[in-house]
Structure formats: structure tokens, C-alpha cells
């Protein structure tokens, strides 16, 4: 029963919020919105107080969810030992010490509440009854047909169909209305002046017409239930005032100024007449206090005609309605409301987060309690569930989800997470499995580990038993589900070969792990040859971390230029290994791999710079080539024989593009001719057929020009939080619409915003801009301001780094094998770049790199070394030539010494340079 009290308290709290809002808004609204609205808006509050409906996530639901353990602790549940135990205080709340609260009092709190509510309500009724009796005993019928006719006429004008009785009772102080089915107007005296009679009757008929008595009883009901809430008492008083005021408003709406004055007079007269019975306790019509009367008269004086629904009141209603819904209630799941035996104490209802995706709601399952809640309450058997974590189940008997009568019809996505330790031992169980019966359901990606169900259902001859789903009926989809029983952890009856052949990917891993190294190597080669990247990826996971196969296959994928396999292998590399591969890719000018490695090390900033540089570099190279055949480039425009080019096509013999440029203002279509070795031989006008072919191609999108990497710096993948970002920029003086940015009234050329880890929030370039601006962020990533970029920063960003380099010339006659040669110590900061270009006349292998300052010696290479590049003689040449390698985490800034080294025979005539590119 405490559950009921809990719901009531939550309703009370959320109703209180609304009451406070309305009370606070009262002075603002008094003369702005109609009295009618001010009256009826309270109905919303009353509904909130009386109706325990709630949204899935509501303020109260959350609040009470949070305080759940506290309540559960404070309210011991004696006959509840079989129920799910109260969830541990996983959310960090500290359970109340049980000793501090007397369990007997808290347990019977609801009795006090309900008892008081009932007594109050009964009292309200008896008081009303005795009042009505008193009035009836002393009343006299008005038999004057003139008055009756007036009443009837007024009723007709107001659209009151029913005949209303008219009585007088000299004992009452003011006119009142009694009864709903048989409405009676009771006047203190019959001898009222005609106008007073008219208005009094009008006022009372208005009450009748609007069923104000019902309204009042609703308020009384709320008051009785929420007797402990002083705000509800306040509300009761407010509604009474609002009732009279809105009634007055309705009466005077149809009156002119003298009429309104006369109505005010009537109110005054009525108050002055005075009877003996002060009717304050019962909810009858006109109980007056001087204060209220004053307010009513004031309202009449200030009356202004309003349209029935003003925009303001409509908006306010909507806001309050949403508020009412959002405030919600802590309603226990439907199950606990339905089954009375559960009502006695089951306050441990579980809640699940939801995820909206493409119009479908997924309930997120993180815990055992949530998993066990599927099929109860609002977590119906027809909902969609998505597992979000490995779940280790307690040994408590599992109850399969879905029965013959009520099959599971929703979806469950195990998401690759495991459910560990599912246990069923009931020998009488007929259906045994995680899911019992499913129909038109989706079950996928479910992994059961260490399940124990083999003894369940022993006594039942035809029990249905299967770990994931015992019985699937029509139209269910079941795939990618795996089950591993308790005890035989890594048992795969199938060999790796069989698994591979049968497409049994999960078992393949364990089978593969059982193979010897040579077998593994052979197998990996086979997978590699087949291009089965998924199996490759699984197989690598089952290799020992130090397996030489990882290095071997990295080498193989690198040599083959197989970037996707390489990226799989690279997942098994340490940061140091990645750094050295990066250096090697840089050395080989293998930008594709370098870019992929930047991705791997999270260096998106470097990747972008690299790409920008690559673009610049290739543009420059191509432009030079084109010049030789009479095509000049100016800005983004190409010119051929003085004409602006429309389509500019430069295609290799293998049909891959070097350049494809389209300029709608151009007049001629030009193609570059290349021979089979890729050398430019000339330029020519394109034939119509060629143009057709090209543009036709483009229409069906069959070519992918720059899909490999995004050359475009204004890439859209950081546009997702544009609105927020723009707001944040605005706060530090940068305004913009995503394309153009302005800072201190100047159009921005470069806008740079990157995180401390150098990944971008935004990098925007606008050729028309005049200033370069960067957004400043603190280490937590919070925007702290904006500033102009220094020239150095701009240079670094745009690749104009030549001007800032430190060149270390190298000219060494001989380097002995095994003896490093040291070329000085340099201070290197994070983000600095290094560029090697060294050749040797003789010798087979050349190493170049850095070591920590102070670790120099001449008889062997120190450990560790950084950004080391090793090159073997190739095509008769021994040369190390790299692009810029960025010095960054895990390479700490500091003093480093440059070395040259060989272990493949002496080097002679070593020449070249090492360039340090420093940011400041």
C-alpha cells in the first residue's frame, strides 16, 4: 500500500510545482488573460493531482527512481522475500540506516494518510448534507409567477434548458445554488429589486451552466487526498476566488458600462443583506469574504473584453500542459498495479533508458534487473530491446521471456554483448531458454556464456529446451546468436578449416587459436588471399600479442598496398610501432598509408594538414606538367590558348583521374594526353563523344574521384553541432553561418578551432577573408575566447613551412657498421615536424632517427629511439626521403639527439639534410 502513497506523494509534488508556477504567474496574468482561463487552468493542476498517468521519463519518475533505494530501505517489506531485491545503491545514493527509522511507523504511514483522507472526505459530505438539509428545511417556494417567469426567461437567454427551482430562505447570507440534477437557486429574500434579482439569477445560472459544483467537488477530492500538502489547500482557496471572478466575467461580458455598474451594486447589496448561516465549510455557491468581494468589484471595474482564446493563454496552456506531463508521477509498473499481491511493497520497479532510432524506440538493457523486467509493465513483449553491456546474471532461476500464451513479439539485439550465467534448474519447467516462445520477433547478436540449463525440465517429458530461444513460431528472425554452456569454455568441435568453410565466425576464433604457429601463418595467408577481412580480424585477435605474424602481415599488407588489411593489423600495434610505421610511410611518401595511420593514432589534425599539403603539392606538380602543353592555371581557372576551360580532364591510361575540373563559365573542353608511362605528351580539345561519356558517367555516379580521402577542408563531418558551435563562437565575438565568419567586423580568411589534442572542431577557409582567427580553448575543451592567428600558425596550417625550417646538413664520408653517428641535440616541441632526406653511396642499410639527449654513445644504438627510419638499398639506391613526420604524443617534447646508423656494412659518402619544422 505504500506504493499507493508513493504515487500520491509524487502526484502531490508534481502538482505542487504547477501550483507554484500558477501562483507565481498570477500577478502577471491577472489582467492579461481571461478570468475564465485563470479559472479553468486549475483543472490541469487538479488532473495532475488526481490522475496517476505519466510519461516514460518524467521528473517525478526520475526523482523517485533515484530515491528508490532509500525508500526501499526505509520501508521493509516483510512478505516480499521472493521479489527482486532492492537494487543496490549503484547510483551513488546512500541507503538510510534502518535502525534510525522505526519500521512500524513508516510501514503504516499509508494508513494515516488514507484514514485522514477518508475522514476528511466523509466529513465534507456530511457537512454538505446537513447544510443542504438546513437550507431545505427553512426554504419557501417562490410562487410569484412574475419572478418565476423572469428566471425562466433569463435561463432561456443563457441557454439553460432545464427548469431551475427558485426558493427563498431568510437564514442564508447570500444567494446560492444547490444541486446538480435538480438545481435550485436559493435567495435570502424574494423582495429583491428587479435588476438585483436579474443579476443574481444570472450569476447563479452561470454557475449552474458551467457545472461549478462538480468543479468544486473535484477540488475537494484533491484536497482530501492531498490533505498533507498546504499548497493544495492554497489551491482550493484560489479556485474559489477564480470561480467567482470568472463567473462575474461571464455575466458582465454581455453588459454595457451601466449594466456592469448595476451588477457591482447587486454584489454589494447581496453582501449587505446578510443572513445568519455562514456557509464556509461546504462547497456551495456564494460564500463571500470582504476581500474577495473587493477583488470582484475591482475586476468588474477593470473589465475589458477579450477574445476567448488569446495567443498568450493558448501558449500558457500548452506550456503548463507540457509541464504537467513532464512533472509526471512515480507510477509503479503496470504489473504492480494490476496484481494486488505485488502491490504490497514492490517499489523496486526498473526503468530503462530509451534510444530513438529511425522512428523506432529501443529500450536499452544494461543490467540483470532490466533484462528480467522484459515482459513486465511497460516493458512489453512487443518492444525493441538493445543490450548495452555484458550482463552477469545471479544464479536466481531465470524466467524465460515469452510464453505460449504471450510470446515475445518484439526484438532483442544482443549487440555482441554477453549474457553470462543464465541458470534454470526447475525440473518442472516446460519451456527452457533465455527466450521462451517468440513469434514474429527478431533475436540477434545474442551471446550466452556459461549458461546452465541442462537439469531444468527433467520431470517434464516434452519440455522444450534451447539456450537462446526455446520455441520460435512463425516469422521470427534469428541470427548471429551464440551460446556457450557452462563448463566447456573453449570447446569447438569444428576445426578452423570447417568453421571457415561453414561461415562459423565466432567459433572460428577459438579453433584458430588452437592451431600451431605455422598452421596459423598458412591459414592467415589463405584468408588474406581470399580477402576475408572479417576472419582475418578475428584470427588476429586470437594471436599472441607478440606473435611475429603481426609484423609479417603488416609488412605484407604494406607492400601490397592493401590498406584495409593493414588497418586491421595496425589495431594490434603499440603506439611506438604505429609511430615507426608512420615514419616509414612518410619516408616512402606513401601518403595513403600515412593518412590511414594518422587516423589510427587519432591525429586528424595532422591528417588534414597532410591532405591539404598533398593537394597543394599535387596541384603544383600537375600545374607544372600542364604548362608544358600550353595549359595554364590561374587560381581555380584553367586556360588553353587564351580561352577559359569548361571541362578540364586529365586521365591516366588506367582511366584514373589526375584532375577533373569543371568551370561553368568556360568555353572549351580540354583533355591532357599522357603516354603509357604517364608522361604528359600534349593537350587537345575533347570530342563531343568524350564529353558525353564523361558527363554521362557523372550522372550515374560510377566514378569515385576523391572518395579515398576527403580533400575538402570544409568537410561535413564536423557540421553536426553547428548550432551549438555557432552560439559558442558568438560568445567570443565570432559570428558566422557555417560558410562565412566575421570577427570584429572583418570577414575571416582562416578560422581555426581545434581541440587540445589537435583534432578539429572546425577549420574554415574563405579566400575572400582578410583576417585569420583562431578559437581558444582550455584543456577541457571549453571555448575561452578568440584571437588573431600568428603568421607562424598560418604558415604551419597552410603548409608554407619552408620559411620556418631548421636545416641540418649532412655530409659524412664514412659511417661504420654498428657505430651511431651523432649530429647534434635539438629542442623539439610537440607538434614539431621532422623531414629526412639522406642518401649514401655505398652500404646496404641506413637508419636515421632521434634518441633522448644524454643517451648518446658510439658503440651501439640506444634504446629507445624515436621516429627512426630504416631503409634498405633498393634499385641500386640507398636513400631515406620522407615527408614531414610530426613529433607528438607519445613522444614527449624535450631534448633529442639526431643519429645516423647502419648495421649492413659501412656507409660512404652520406649526404643530404634533416629538416626540422618548428611551430615557433
Amino acid at each position, binding site marked *: 500500500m505504500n506504493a499507493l502513497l508513493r504515487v500520491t506523494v509524487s502526484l502531490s509534488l508534481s502538482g505542487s510545482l504547477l501550483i507554484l508556477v500558477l501562483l507565481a504567474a498570477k500577478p502577471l496574468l491577472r489582467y492579461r488573460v481571461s478570468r475564465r482561463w485563470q479559472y479553468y487552468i486549475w483543472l490541469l493542476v487538479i488532473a495532475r493531482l488526481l490522475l496517476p498517468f505519466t510519461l516514460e521519463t518524467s521528473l517525478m519518475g526520475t526523482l523517485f527512481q533515484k530515491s528508490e533505494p532509500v525508500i526501499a530501505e526505509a520501508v521493509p517489506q516483510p512478505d516480499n522475500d521472493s521479489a527482486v531485491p532492492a537494487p543496490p545503491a549503484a547510483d551513488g545514493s546512500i541507503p538510510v540506516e534502518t535502525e534510525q527509522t522505526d519500521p512500524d511507523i513508516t510501514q503504516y504511514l499509508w494508513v494515516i494518510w488514507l484514514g485522514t483522507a477518508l475522514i476528511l472526505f466523509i466529513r465534507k459530505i456530511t457537512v454538505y448534507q446537513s447544510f443542504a438539509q438546513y437550507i431545505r428545511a427553512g426554504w419557501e*417556494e417562490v*410562487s410569484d*409567477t412574475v419572478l*418565476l*417567469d423572469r*428566471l*425562466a*426567461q433569463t*435561463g*432561456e437567454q443563457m441557454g439553460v434548458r*432545464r*427548469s*431551475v*427551482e*427558485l426558493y427563498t430562505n431568510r437564514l442564508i447570507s447570500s444567494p446560492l445554488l444547490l444541486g446538480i440534477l435538480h438545481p435550485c437557486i436559493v435567495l435570502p429574500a424574494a423582495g429583491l429589486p428587479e435588476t438585483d434579482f436579474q443579476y443574481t439569477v444570472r450569476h447563479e445560472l452561470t454557475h449552474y451552466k458551467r457545472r461549478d459544483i462538480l468543479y468544486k467537488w473535484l477540488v475537494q477530492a484533491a484536497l482530501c487526498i492531498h490533505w498533507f500538502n498546504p499548497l493544495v489547500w492554497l489551491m482550493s482557496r484560489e479556485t474559489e476566488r477564480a470561480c467567482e471572478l470568472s463567473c462575474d466575467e461571464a455575466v458582465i461580458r454581455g453588459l454595457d458600462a451601466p449594466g456592469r455598474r448595476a451588477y457591482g451594486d447587486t454584489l454589494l447589496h447581496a453582501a449587505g443583506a446578510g443572513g445568519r448561516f455562514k456557509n464556509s465549510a461546504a462547497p456551495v455557491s456564494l460564500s463571500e469574504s470582504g476581500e474577495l468581494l473587493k477583488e470582484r468589484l475591482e475586476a468588474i471595474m477593470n473589465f475589458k473584453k477579450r477574445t476567448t482564446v488569446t495567443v498568450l493563454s493558448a501558449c500558457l496552456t500548452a506550456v503548463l500542459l507540457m509541464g504537467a506531463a513532464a512533472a509526471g508521477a512515480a507510477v509503479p509498473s503496470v504489473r504492480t498495479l494490476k496484481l494486488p499481491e505485488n502491490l504490497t511493497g514492490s517499489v523496486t520497479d526498473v526503468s530503462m533508458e530509451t534510444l530513438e532510432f529511425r522512428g523506432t524506440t529501443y529500450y536499452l538493457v544494461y543490467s540483470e534487473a532490466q533484462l528480467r523486467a522484459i515482459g513486465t509493465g511497460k516493458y512489453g513483449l512487443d518492444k525493441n530491446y538493445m543490450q548495452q553491456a555484458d550482463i552477469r546474471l545471479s544464479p536466481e532461476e531465470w524466467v524465460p521471456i515469452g510464453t505460449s500464451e504471450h510470446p515475445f513479439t518484439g526484438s532483442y539485439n544482443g549487440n555482441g554483448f554477453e549474457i553470462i550465467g543464465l541458470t534454470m534448474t526447475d525440473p518442472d519447467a516446460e519451456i527452457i531458454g533465455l527466450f521462451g516462445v517468440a513469434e514474429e520477433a527478431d533475436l540477434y547478436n545474442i551471446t550466452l556464456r556459461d549458461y546452465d540449463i541442462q537439469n531444468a525440465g527433467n520431470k517434464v517429458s516434452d519440455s522444450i529446451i534451447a539456450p537462446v530461444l526455446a520455441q520460435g513460431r512463425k516469422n521470427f528472425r534469428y541470427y548471429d546468436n551464440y551460446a556457450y554452456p557452462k563448463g566447456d569454455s573453449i570447446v569447438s568441435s569444428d576445426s578452423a578449416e570447417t568453421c571457415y568453410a561453414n561461415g562459423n565466425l565466432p567459433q572460428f576464433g577459438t579453433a584458430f587459436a588452437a592451431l600451431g604457429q605455422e598452421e596459423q601463418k598458412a591459414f592467415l595467408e589463405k584468408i588474406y588471399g581470399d580477402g576475408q577481412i572479417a576472419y582475418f580480424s578475428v584470427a588476429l585477435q586470437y594471436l599472441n600479442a607478440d606473435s611475429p605474424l603481426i609484423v609479417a602481415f603488416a609488412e605484407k599488407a604494406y607492400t601490397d598496398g592493401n590498406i584495409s588489411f593493414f588497418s586491421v593489423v595496425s589495431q594490434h600495434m603499440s603506439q611506438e610501432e604505429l609511430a615507426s610505421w608512420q615514419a616509414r610511410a612518410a619516408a616512402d611518401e606513401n601518403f595513403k598509408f600515412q593518412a590511414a595511420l594518422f587516423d589510427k593514432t587519432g591525429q586528424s589534425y595532422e591528417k588534414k594538414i597532410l591532405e591539404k599539403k598533398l593537394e597543394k603539392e599535387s596541384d603544383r606538380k600537375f600545374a607544372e606538367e600542364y604548362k608544358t602543353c600550353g595549359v595554364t592555371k590561374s587560381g581555380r581557372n584553367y586556360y588553353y590558348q587564351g580561352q577559359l576551360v569548361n571541362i578540364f580532364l586529365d586521365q591516366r591510361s588506367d582511366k584514373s583521374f589526375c584532375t577533373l575540373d569543371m568551370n561553368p563559365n568556360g568555353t572549351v573542353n580540354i583533355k591532357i594526353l599522357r603516354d603509357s608511362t604517364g608522361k604528359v605528351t600534349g593537350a587537345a580539345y575533347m570530342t563531343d563523344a568524350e564529353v558525353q561519356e564523361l558527363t554521362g558517367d557523372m550522372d550515374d555516379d560510377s566514378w569515385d574521384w576523391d572518395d579515398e580521402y576527403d580533400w575538402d577542408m570544409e568537410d561535413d563531418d564536423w557540421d553536426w553541432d553547428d548550432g551549438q558551435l555557432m552560439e559558442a563562437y558568438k560568445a567570443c565575438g565570432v559570428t558566422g553561418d557555417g560558410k562565412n565568419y566575421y570577427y570584429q567586423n572583418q570577414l575571416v580568411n582562416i578560422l581555426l578551432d581545434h581541440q587540445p589534442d589537435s583534432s578539429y572542431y572546425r577549420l574554415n577557409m574563405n579566400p575572400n577573408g582578410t583576417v585569420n582567427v583562431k578559437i581558444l580553448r582550455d584543456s577541457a575543451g571549453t571555448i575561452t575566447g578568440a584571437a588573431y592567428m600568428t603568421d607562424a600558425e598560418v604558415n604551419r596550417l597552410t603548409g608554407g613551412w619552408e620559411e620556418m625550417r631548421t636545416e641540418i646538413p649532412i655530409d659524412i664520408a664514412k659511417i661504420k657498421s654498428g657505430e651511431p653517428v651523432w649530429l647534434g641535440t635539438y629542442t623539439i616541441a610537440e607538434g614539431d615536424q621532422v623531414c629526412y632526406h639522406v642518401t649514401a653511396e655505398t652500404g646496404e642499410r641506413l637508419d636515421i632517427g632521434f634518441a633522448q639527449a644524454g643517451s648518446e654513445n658510439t658503440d651501439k644504438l640506444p634504446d629507445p629511439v624515436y621516429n627512426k627510419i630504416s631503409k634498405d638499398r633498393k634499385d641500386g639506391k640507398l636513400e631515406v626521403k620522407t615527408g614531414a613526420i610530426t613529433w607528438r604524443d607519445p613522444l614527449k617534447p624535450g631534448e633529442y639527439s639526431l643519429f645516423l646508423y647502419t648495421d649492413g656494412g659501412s656507409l660512404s659518402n652520406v649526404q643530404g639534410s634533416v629538416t626540422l619544422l618548428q611551430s615557433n
Partner: protein
Amino acid sequence: MIQQISDSELELMKIVWTSGGTALYAQIMEELSRTGRTWQKNTVITLLSRLVEKGLLKTSKIGRRNRYTSLVSEAEYQAAQTQTLLNKLYEGSAKGLVSTLIRQDMLSAEDYEELKQFWERGKP
């Protein structure tokens, strides 16, 4: 004991009595307008329902129409009213009433003779 009714209620009762003890609402309204009464519909309904409440009429529905039937005949009503009058004014003495009627010439000589014969005939 027949309850006291107002004059307007009596008007309605008379209409019911003259139409043979039962009358439809529409008939009552018709009769009222014929005798120059212009009461409002709801006034009439209120009066009729008061009569029902006081036990002089009962109401029944014929289709959607209301039919009122008198539960008290005109004679019964008159007797009851006279009894009330007697009790109120003459402390139950009919003699006093009759002498007042004769003294005030409210009862003519012929009427008196007629009454006398009526009395002689009916005497046991």
C-alpha cells in the same frame, strides 16, 4: 393530508381536473394561453413539478410527451381545503361557517332551502 399549494399551482390543477383528471403538457400550455396566461415554459414546468412533489399530480411519459394525472380529485381538494379553513377560522365548527355565509348573504335563501333538502334526504 393535502399540502398547501399556491394560486398558480391551483390554476394548473384546475386545468387538469377539467380535462378529466389527466392532461398532456401541451394541453396545459394550450389551455393557459386560451385563458390569457402567458407564463414561461419553465415556470409551468417548475409549478407542475412542485405539484408532483406535493403529491397532487403524477407524471408519466407518453413517448417524449409528459402526461400529468391528478392524484387528488377536485372534491377531495375542496374538502381538504374547507377542513383547513374550518380548523383555521372556526375551530372545526361548520355551524360557524354556515352562519357566516348566511349572515354575509353569501348563501341565498334558495341555496339555503336546497341545502336543507339535501340534508333531510341524506339523513339516516
